[in-house]
């Protein structure tokens, strides 16, 4: 350490902290004072030695992702109230649905390019349904008629069979009586 009374200024000068106005005088002093010159030399060597330790690269880069969704904003200040409001709307919707039948809606199919072509869908559906129903009825009647005819024919065949069976029974009875009569006459 320099014993010169300029030692403090010398250190400020070494670290570039001496006001510009005071530098020329100190530079002249250093040329004349061996103690201060040696001290300056030593300070510069010391700082140069310290600077051999290089800066290291951080092992990871630090980065911040956009956190706008987390950042407080005026909108999110009302978030709790929005929660209550949405719950209220849902409750009202449930009550309304339970107490009111849904109103029928008339849906109109629009065909592009012609106003005349505008026709209610329900009419078309009704017509189609009635056509289907009449067709079903016609087919049912036809089927029923065919079944009745078939049933009638089967009934007639059955009755003929019964009649034949009755005739056959009568014939057998007559034959038995005749056989018995013949055997009685022979004795």
């Amino acid at each position, binding site marked *: 350490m320099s014993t010169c009374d300029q030692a403090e200024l010398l250190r400020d000068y070494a670290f570039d902290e001496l006001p510009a106005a005071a530098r020329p005088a100190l530079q002249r002093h250093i040329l004349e004072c061996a103690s201060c010159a040696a001290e300056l030399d030593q300070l510069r*060597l*010391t700082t140069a*030695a*310290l600077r051999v330790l290089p800066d290291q690269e*951080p092992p990871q880069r*630090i980065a*911040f992702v956009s956190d706008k969704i987390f950042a407080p904003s005026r909108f999110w200040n009302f978030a709790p109230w929005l929660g209550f409001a949405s719950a209220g709307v849902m409750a009202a919707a449930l009550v309304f649905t339970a107490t009111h039948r849904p109103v029928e809606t008339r849906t109109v199919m629009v065909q592009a390019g012609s106003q005349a072509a505008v026709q209610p869908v329900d009419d078309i559906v009704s017509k189609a349904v009635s056509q289907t129903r009449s067709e079903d009825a016609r087919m049912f009647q036809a089927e029923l008629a065919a079944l009745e005819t078939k049933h009638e024919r089967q009934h007639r065949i059955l009755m003929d069979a019964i009649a034949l069976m009755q005739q056959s029974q009568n014939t057998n009875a007559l034959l038995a009586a005749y056989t018995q009569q013949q055997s009685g006459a022979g004795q």
Partner: protein
Amino acid sequence: MIFRAVEDADLITRVRKGDVEAFNHLVSRWEKRVFNYLLRLTGKPDDSLDLSQDVFLKAYQNIRKLDDTARFGPWLFRIAHNEAYSHFRKRRPEAEPEDAERMEREPARSVAPELTLAVTAALDRLSPEQREAVVLKVYQGFKFEEMAEILAIPVSTIKSRLYTALDLLKVELAPTDNRGSSRGMR
């Protein structure tokens, strides 16, 4: 340095309007300096990285409190200083930063090992306050006024710490021979 301050001020204005990318630009400009400052205080890369992240997070959260955008550097290092000492206080029951933790410091690469070890050993012999003064002045290049702002102490105290530290370091790193000329570690 002036251009950098101007650009920092512009980025800070954008950050204050909600531009996170502008803050990422600020981080990329300052993260190496902050990391190395903390590394030289703690001696632990992992702790330094965690602390750096905390520093930038606090900077982001408090950037509206920065009065003079041209003073972003000292303001950021003030946060880093507080984070480092808060970290030391939490860990004090386990180990003092100047002994056990500093033993884990990795020697710098691409420098003569004996010189690196000599510098590291010389720095380790300083008190934490002296070492921080050396780090801020020699490695970070802050002015005395900025250092006073970072450490929240008078300039006279800064000078006292720095020059006392240099007197100790000179003995280790630039000893003089009997004839008064310095030999140094060349």
